């Protein structure tokens, strides 16, 4: 707790000089000159032809959970993320971003170049997020909760190396992304040898905002569908059932081979101070030739959904701008306050029962497990750079009536301080 209090104190002290730099007047760029400014991020700009933003993010997490404490060796506070990076634009047609963690076994995050000849046709190459999952492709600094949903974390793809065509058409009503990637993302990547993940991956997403040009509250409504298709080598998959804080409830000790298919639908709507988001994701792994006598087995299925809603109680114009309080702390206000709730469910295992359920690695009908979680959240944005969040999560894993799989109930409390420039 002492450590947590110290971090809060540092954040509050840091808020004062940050506030002093709030809202500088953006001067128009002058030709042949270097300009330095700090709007959302500190940035330098030369002659309107080169712009470089400097970014940094620090997150400190405190977690309390019966399950999690066992994993934290008695220290509930953790500096979750120390990330630095640059982003910018060259000549108006080329954008770039380079981000890395300061301490991580796989430090590089987004490292890509985006060529934008027109708004409707852009080409992006490098390492970035595969276009699958509304929440997964939202920056962690803009999430409504401390952690992404378990469904997104376990089933969405994540980052990978690849090339993608994307753009917005029909007066930005329609968005598309389609690309080819080396693998199927870091969420599915095995942390230990002996597990397999998808190989070369084709991914695509189509989003539509049918009322974008209306003046109504519906103008922000967005629907989307997405898919990935990957080759899948023979082995046990790395996609496994883990709770929000990593408690294992299904180890996916079963043979897969063939193709991995992800399909997802997403919807987002932000009318005024409220927001609503939901996704349904289905992941299916082929099990070709994996039967006891070499026959094909039913695919291994993992599927889930979440529904979330937020309410900006005070301090911001609407849900979309909650991270930019109208009156920041120490500038005549207290920042903004948002409440959030999320309900989600993740199920792993067979859908159809053509055989007795079994935990055998070659079972026709896989005895899986499921989790239903409810998260209550509150976020206090002191200003556009600093936020303090608290989440309360209740997770119900498995069912007491099903033997052979773990079942437990977990309450967890999370607390996060985030400084993001």
């Amino acid at each position, binding site marked *: 707790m002492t450590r947590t209090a110290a971090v809060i104190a540092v954040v509050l002290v840091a808020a004062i000089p940050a506030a002093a730099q709030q809202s500088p007047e953006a001067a128009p760029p002058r030709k042949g000159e270097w300009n330095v400014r700090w709007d959302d991020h500190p940035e330098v700009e030369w002659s309107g032809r080169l712009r470089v933003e400097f970014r940094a993010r620090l997150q400190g997490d405190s977690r309390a959970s019966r399950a999690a404490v066992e994993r934290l060796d008695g220290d509930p506070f953790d500096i979750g993320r120390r990330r630095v990076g640059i982003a910018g634009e060259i000549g108006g047609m080329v954008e770039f971003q380079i981000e890395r963690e300061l301490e991580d076994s796989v430090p590089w995050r987004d490292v890509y170049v985006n060529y934008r000849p027109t708004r409707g046709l852009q080409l992006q190459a490098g390492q970035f997020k595969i276009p699958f999952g509304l929440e997964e492709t939202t920056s962690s600094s803009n999430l409504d909760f401390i952690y992404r949903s378990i469904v997104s974390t376990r089933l969405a793809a994540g980052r990978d190396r690849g090339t993608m065509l994307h753009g917005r058409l029909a007066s930005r009503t329609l968005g598309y992304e389609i690309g080819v990637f080396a693998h199927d993302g870091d969420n599915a990547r095995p942390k230990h040898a002996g597990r397999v993940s998808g190989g070369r991956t084709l991914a695509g997403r189509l989003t539509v905002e049918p009322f974008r040009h209306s003046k109504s509250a519906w103008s922000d409504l967005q629907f989307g569908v997405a898919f990935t298709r990957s080759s899948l080598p*023979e082995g046990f998959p790395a996609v496994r059932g883990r709770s929000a804080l990593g408690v294992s409830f299904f180890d996916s000790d079963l*043979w897969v081979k063939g193709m991995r298919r992800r399909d997802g639908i997403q919807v987002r709507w932000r009318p005024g101070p409220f927001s609503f988001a939901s996704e349904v994701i289905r992941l299916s792994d082929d099990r070709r030739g*994996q*039967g*006891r*006598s*070499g026959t094909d087995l039913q695919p291994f299925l993992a599927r889930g959904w979440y529904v979330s809603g937020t309410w900006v109680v005070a301090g911001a114009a609407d849900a979309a701008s909650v991270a930019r309080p109208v009156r920041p702390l120490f500038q005549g206000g207290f920042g903004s306050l948002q409440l959030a709730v999320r309900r989600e469910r993740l199920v792993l295992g067979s859908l159809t029962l053509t*055989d*007795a*359920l*079994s*935990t*055998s*690695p*070659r*079972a*026709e009908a896989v*005895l899986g497990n499921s989790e239903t979680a409810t998260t209550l959240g509150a976020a206090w944005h002191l200003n556009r750079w600093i936020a303090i969040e608290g989440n309360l999560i209740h997770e119900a894993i498995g069912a007491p009536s099903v*033997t*052979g799989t773990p079942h437990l109930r977990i309450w967890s409390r999370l607390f996060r301080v985030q400084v993001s420039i």
Partner: protein
Amino acid sequence: MRTLAPRCVMRLALLAIAWISAIGVATAGPTLDDLFADSVVHDVRLSINERDLRELRDRYRENVYFPADFEWRGERVRNVGVRSRGLASRSATKLGLRIDFNRYSTGQRFLGLASLVLDNLVTDPALVRERVSMRLFARLGQPAPREVFARVFINDVYEGIYAIVEPVDGDFLARVVGQKSGYLFERHFLQPYYGEDLGEDPAAYRTVFEPRTHELDADSVLYAPIRELFYEVNQSVDTVWRERVSRYVDLQQFVTHVAIETFLSEADGILGFAGMANFYLYRGPVHDQHRLIVWDKDRTFAAIDSSILQRADENRLFSRALAFSDLRSLYLDVLERCAHLAAADGWLEGEIVRLAALIDGAAREDRRKPYDDEARVRDVEFLRQFARQRPAFVLHGVAQERGRR
């Protein structure tokens, strides 16, 4: 309106009863007694994914489970767990196998059994030692697992002649001692053990006796009575030794067990060449007294003329027990009973001949066994000779021993 004559009604009723009985006979499934019917060689079929089978053979030294389908007499059990088993008998060529029916499907059983052992018989050229030995133990009232012969096929390829062995587990205990809630330990062979006191720490006995029930209990609960047993065993033999040791082991049953092994000239039993081996230790749920359960008798019939007191002084418990005249007398009595039982009507030789003939065809087709058929026939002949000569040798030894006293 015409009514049916009583005779006609009677005929119809009899016909109905016969029909219902026929349906009942046709639909009644096989039972556990059918599985352990020892007058036939059974067929057991396993389906294992070829990749798993290769890995099972590659990793035959490990206790790694693989999924399989098990089939006997058309009864198919899906998603069973199969692993390699045995100590000296482990083989990649002719796999020794343990089948766990509930490994991947909680509560799944086969004819009420949670598991089965498929003994590959590779350490016994005659292939019948184990089966005959268990029969003798059973005939002398000692709890012994049931065994029958089976031809085992893996993915429709003949793996060889095996013994289906009833595992010593909760179900076995329920059958032979009427309760399954006690503590069962398997002698875990890491190093020779002769009954020494391993000290104060009960956990020291974990390297000697592996728990097969109550596996999650604390070492102090599991092993404290075993520690007390071997502490008391190693005290001086005085007036209270017997009373104290009897609290922790059934000395009469222990002596009886050793006597049967001795008659069978067991080279790898309680008085084995490498210390105590091939047995289970069982303790009831309430009392601290242990008893032995016989296991793995594939090294019996070692020598016709092995002494009735061979290696008797090496074992701390047995050597001290024989200091008591009534226990010594019991030991000699059991040896005598074994000899008479074996010799009566040529029972022992008859069993050897019957079983050897029963499996002859299946054994000849077994290309994975480590001995050729000539060696098998020679060894069967030796066993017959043992059966004819051993009783007399033992009776002579018993008489000599009694005369010495």
